[in-house]
C-alpha cells in the first residue's frame, strides 16, 4: 500500500513551499507521485529515487577514472587533506539543511579555514547593503495579508521562483486583501520584458546597469525634489517616474522584491543599499518593506546559522581560530580563487564547476578538490573526491530558512538507503580532524 505524506517541504527555490504532497512506495524507497509542486521541484523528488543515484563516495584514480570507496576512506581522505592545507575553503550550502551548515562551521573552525556560501556569488551584495543600511523587511504572510502594491525589481519570479506570485505576492487573497490580484498594483522594473513583466500593470524598462540612478530619482520625488528631476533618468521618462512614485507613496502597504538584476550589475551592493534607503524614505509616509528573492530553499540558512555562531553570515575567515574575520572582496570565494589565496577546495551542496566563472574554476583546480553533493554535476566531474549525501527534504529532514528567514521544518519522505546526511558526514570529518590535531599537539 503506497503511503501519502502531506505538508512536505520543497527543496528547490527560496519560496520553500511546505504544502507538497508526496506518495511513496510501501517499502518507503520510491517516490511514486508528487503534487502541489512546480515543475522544477517535481524533478528533484523524481531524482531522489532514481536508480542512477550515486550511493558511494568516488575517488579519482591516476588514470582519471573514478573508483568507488567507503565513507570511512572518504572521511579519512578529506580530514587528512584539511589538516595538511594551510588555507582550505569550503563553499556551497545551496541545498543543505541548517544542521549540516552548523556542522560545517565546526569543521572549518577546527580546520582553521575559509567558509563561504552561494550568497557570495548571488545575494552577497545584499548582505553588504544590509551591513551598511539595515533591512526593513517582513515575513511573506505580511505581504499576502496586507500588500496593495508589489514591486519586482531586477527579479523574475515567473522563472526563478515559480510559486512566489501565487503563494505570497500577487494572487493570494489574504486577511486584509480578500480581493487578491484585483486590488493589487504590480510594478516590474527590468531591462528585459520578462514573463513577470508580462503580468505587471507597469513595466519600467530601465537601462541595464543604471538602476542606481533610477532609485536616486524616486528618492528625490519622495523627498520633495520632483521639480529638479531631469526629463529622463536611466531610460525612464520623468512622467513615468512621477506616476510610479505616486503609486508608491499612496500605497497602504508596499513591498519591493529584488533579485540578481541588482546584485550582479555595476555597483552591486549599492543598488540594494539605495533601494533600502528608498524603503526607509517611504516609511516616513506609509508602510513599505523590502525583501531579497533568495535563490535556494535554504540559502538563507547559512547566513542565519553562521551569524549566531561567528557573527558573520558568509565569507568567513576562520584561519585565526581564536576569532573570525569577514570582508567580501578579500575573503569571498571567487576573489580568493582568482588570487590563489586558498590551497584546498570543498564544494558542498552546490556546483562551482557550473556556476563560477571558468577562470575561477581553473585556479581552484590547481589544488585538491572535494565535492559533497547528492548528484553528478560539473564540480563532481572535475573533483578528486565525490561524496554523495542525502537530499534534504527527500531522504533527510531538518530546519531550513525561507527567503524571509522563516524557519520551515522539512520532513524525510524516503529512506536514505545507506547514504549519510551532511550533518553526520561533516561531524565525523570534524571528529577525525580533532584527533589529528590532538596527535600533533
Amino acid at each position, binding site marked *: 500500500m503506497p503511503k501519502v505524506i*502531506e*505538508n512536505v517541504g520543497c527543496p528547490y527555490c527560496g519560496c520553500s513551499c*511546505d504544502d507538497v504532497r508526496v506518495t511513496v512506495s510501501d517499502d518507503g524507497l520510491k517516490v511514486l507521485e508528487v503534487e502541489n509542486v512546480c515543475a522544477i521541484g517535481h524533478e528533484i523528488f523524481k531524482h531522489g529515487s532514481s536508480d542512477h543515484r550515486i550511493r558511494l563516495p568516488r575517488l579519482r584514480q591516476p588514470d582519471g577514472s573514478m573508483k568507488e570507496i567507503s565513507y570511512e576512506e572518504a572521511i579519512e581522505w578529506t580530514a587528512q587533506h584539511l589538516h595538511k592545507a594551510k588555507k582550505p575553503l569550503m563553499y556551497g550550502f545551496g541545498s543543505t539543511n*541548517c544542521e549540516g551548515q*552548523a556542522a560545517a562551521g*565546526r569543521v572549518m*573552525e577546527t580546520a582553521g579555514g575559509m567558509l563561504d556560501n552561494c550568497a557570495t556569488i548571488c545575494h552577497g551584495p545584499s*548582505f553588504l547593503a*544590509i*551591513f*551598511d*543600511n*539595515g*533591512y*526593513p*523587511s*517582513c*515575513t*511573506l*504572510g*505580511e505581504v*499576502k*495579508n*496586507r500588500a496593495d502594491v508589489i514591486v519586482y525589481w531586477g527579479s523574475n519570479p515567473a522563472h526563478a521562483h515559480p510559486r512566489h506570485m501565487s*503563494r*505570497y505576492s500577487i494572487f493570494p*487573497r*489574504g*486577511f*486584509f486583501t480578500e480581493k487578491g490580484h484585483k486590488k493589487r498594483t504590480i510594478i516590474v522594473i527590468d531591462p528585459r520584458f520578462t514573463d513577470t513583466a508580462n503580468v505587471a500593470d507597469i513595466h519600467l524598462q530601465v537601462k541595464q546597469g543604471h538602476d542606481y540612478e533610477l532609485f536616486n530619482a524616486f528618492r528625490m520625488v519622495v523627498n520633495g525634489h520632483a521639480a529638479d528631476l531631469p526629463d529622463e533618468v536611466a531610460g525612464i521618462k520623468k512622467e513615468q517616474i512621477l506616476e510610479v512614485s505616486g503609486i508608491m507613496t499612496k500605497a497602504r*502597504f508596499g513591498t519591493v522584491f529584488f533579485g540578481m538584476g541588482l546584485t550582479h550589475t555595476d555597483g552591486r551592493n549599492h543598488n540594494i543599499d539605495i533601494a533600502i534607503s528608498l524603503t*526607509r524614505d517611504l*516609511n*516616513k*509616509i*506609509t*508602510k513599505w*518593506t523590502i525583501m531579497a528573492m533568495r535563490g535556494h530553499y535554504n540559502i538563507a540558512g547559512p*547566513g*542565519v*546559522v553562521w*551569524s*549566531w*555562531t*561567528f*557573527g*558573520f553570515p558568509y565569507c568567513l575567515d*576562520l584561519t*585565526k*581560530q*581564536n*576569532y*573570525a574575520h569577514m570582508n567580501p572582496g578579500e575573503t569571498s570565494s571567487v576573489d580568493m580563487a582568482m588570487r590563489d589565496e586558498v590551497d584546498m577546495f570543498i564544494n558542498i551542496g552546490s556546483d562551482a564547476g557550473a556556476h563560477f566563472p571558468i577562470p575561477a574554476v581553473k585556479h581552484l583546480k590547481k589544488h585538491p578538490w572535494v565535492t559533497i553533493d547528492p548528484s553528478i554535476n560539473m564540480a563532481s566531474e572535475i573533483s578528486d573526491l565525490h561524496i554523495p549525501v542525502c537530499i534534504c527534504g527527500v531522504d533527510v529532514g531538518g*530546519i531550513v*530558512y525561507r527567503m524571509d*528567514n*522563516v*524557519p*520551515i*521544518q522539512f520532513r524525510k519522505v524516503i529512506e536514505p538507503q545507506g547514504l549519510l546526511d551532511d550533518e553526520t558526514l561533516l561531524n565525523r570529518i570534524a571528529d577525525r580532524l580533532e584527533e589529528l590535531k590532538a596527535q600533533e599537539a
Partner: protein
Amino acid sequence: MSEMLIKNGYVFDPISGIKGDKTDIAIKDGKIVEKVSSKAKIIDAAGKTVMAGGCEIHAHVAGPKVNAGRTMRPEDKLFRGSYRGGIVKQGKRMEMGFSIPSTWKTGYAYARMGYAFTNEAAMPPLLAPHVHEEFRDTPIIDQAAMPVFGNNWFCLEYLKNKEIENNAAYVAWLLKSTFGFGIKVVNPGGTEAWGWGENCVDIHDPVPYFDITPAEIIKGLIETNEYLGLPHSVHLHGNNLGNPGNYEHTIETLKLASEYKPKNKFGREQVLHNTHLQFFSYKGDSWGTFASAAKEVMDYVNKTDTLTVDLGCVTLDETTTMTADGPFEHHLNQLNHLKWSNVDVELETGSGVVPYVYDKDIAVCGIQWAIGLELALYAKDLMRVHITTDHPNAGPFTRYPRIIKWLMSKKAREATLDTMKRKEKIIKSTDLAGMDRELGLYDIAMMTRAGPAKALGLSNIYGSLKAGADANVAIYNLDATKLPTDPELIENAFSNTLYTIKEGVIVVQNGEIVAEPQKHTIWTKVSVPENAQVMRDIKEKFTKSYTVNLENYAVFDEHVHNPRAIEVEFSA
C-alpha cells in the same frame, strides 16, 4: 553519585534567608542537599562570597531579531580586545561580538559571571524553531523563551469579545507549540498598528481594525495568565517606551494590574512584571527638558506588592537596540539615522533593530544612566527589583558587574559622573548625585538571583541554595567581611567567578571555562481540556492567512534541545 561540599564561604541566599553567615553548601547528583558523605569533593571557599547561580529574567540572547542584529553589524566584532574576537578561545568554540555576542560567547560569558539561567525576552511564535536552534548552540546555561502575545490576532479577537477561556486555551496551545515559557507583551496593539505604519501611543489608543485598546489587551492577558495559573506573570513592555514625559503612562499602565490577585502554585506573588522600567520613567516634554521620574514611578511600585520590575540600566556603551516594538525602532532610526532593520511577523508580532551609541557626553544618555540606578536605590523591596540592561538595548549583559559596582559604591557613581561633559545638567535632572545609599551583597543576591527566580515561579530550581534546588553555585573572590575600598575590585570579582558550578559540575574556574555540560530548555506545559472552538479558529487562520502549514508550525520534538517541562495542572 558525584558529591561536593563548598566549605566556609560567606553565603548569601535570600530564598533561605542566609545573610552572609559562614555556611557549607552540600551537593549530590546535581542537586543541593542537606549533607554529603566524607567522600565528597571539598571546595574551600573561606574568605569568599557564595551565592546561588545567577538567574536572568529579561535579555534578548537568542532568536530572529537578535540574529538580525548580529548579521547587520559586522563592525560589532571589529578590534574588540587585543584580537578582533576579543578573548582567546577558552571553550570548545570561538567567542564573537560585543553588544550582540554569538551564542557560544553568550553561554560562556553568563557562566563566567556566575549565571545558570537566562530568559529570552521575546520569541515570535512563527519563528520559534530558530530560537530553539540557537538554544542548541548556546553552551552551559539553561534557557527559556517567552512567546509574544500582545499583538497576536487570536488574542486581539478573543479579548475583544472577552473570551478569556478561549484565549487561555489558545495560550496553552501556543506555549506547547513553541515550547514557550510565559506570556510576553510588547507595545500591545502598537506593533499590529505598525503593520500599517502606525502606533498606539497610550493604553487607550485603539488598535486599527481590531478596535480594542492596549489597556484591554493587558488586562485580558493578566486575567488569562492567572486563570491558567502560569509560573510567571504577564511580562510587559508597555506603550510609549523611550519618550520624554512617558512616566504618567507608565503609572497608568501599572495601575491596570491593581484589580488582579496572583493565583499559582509556584510561590509567585506578582501579577505583572514591568520590564526595563528605566525606559518608562521619563519626565519632560522634549529632549531639552528630559528628566528623571524614577521617584514617582518607584513610589508606586514600592507600595504595590503585586508588581515586579527590572531596571534596564544604561551602561554608556555603543550597543544595539532591538525590540518587538517595531514602531519605536523606526522612531529611533529617525533620531540617530543609523541603519535600521525591521521584521514584521504575520498575524503575531514585529520587531526592529537599530545600533545606538550611549555617549556619556550627551545629557540625555547621562540622565538615562542615572535613572536606571535611581530606580534601584529608591526601591524598598529588592526582591521585586531586578538588575537587567534589557540586553542589548541599554547595554550588553556583560556589564552587570559594572552596574553592581555602581549600586554598591557611591564613589564609583561619582567617578563616572565626573567623566561626563554635561555633569551639571545630569545632576539637575536627576536625584542620583544626592543619593548616599550603597547596596550590600545580600541586596545584590536578591536582585540577580532570588528575586528573578521567584518572579519567574522557578525559585524551587534556580536562584536558591535550599535543598532540592539545582546545584547552581557562584563563588566570587570577595571577602564579605571586608569589601574592597577600590570599587573596580567589586566589578572584577563579579566579572569572573572563582568557581561557577552548574548542576554540580564545575564549569568555570578562576574565570576560565573548564567544562560544558548538557544544558536544559525550560518550558511551560499546561494541560487544559481540548477546546473545539479554538482548534477550529486555529485551522481557519492557517488555511486563510498564514503562509506556513499548521502541521509544520509547532516545533518538532527533535528540534527542542533537552527540554524540561514546568507542569501546570489547570483547574477551572
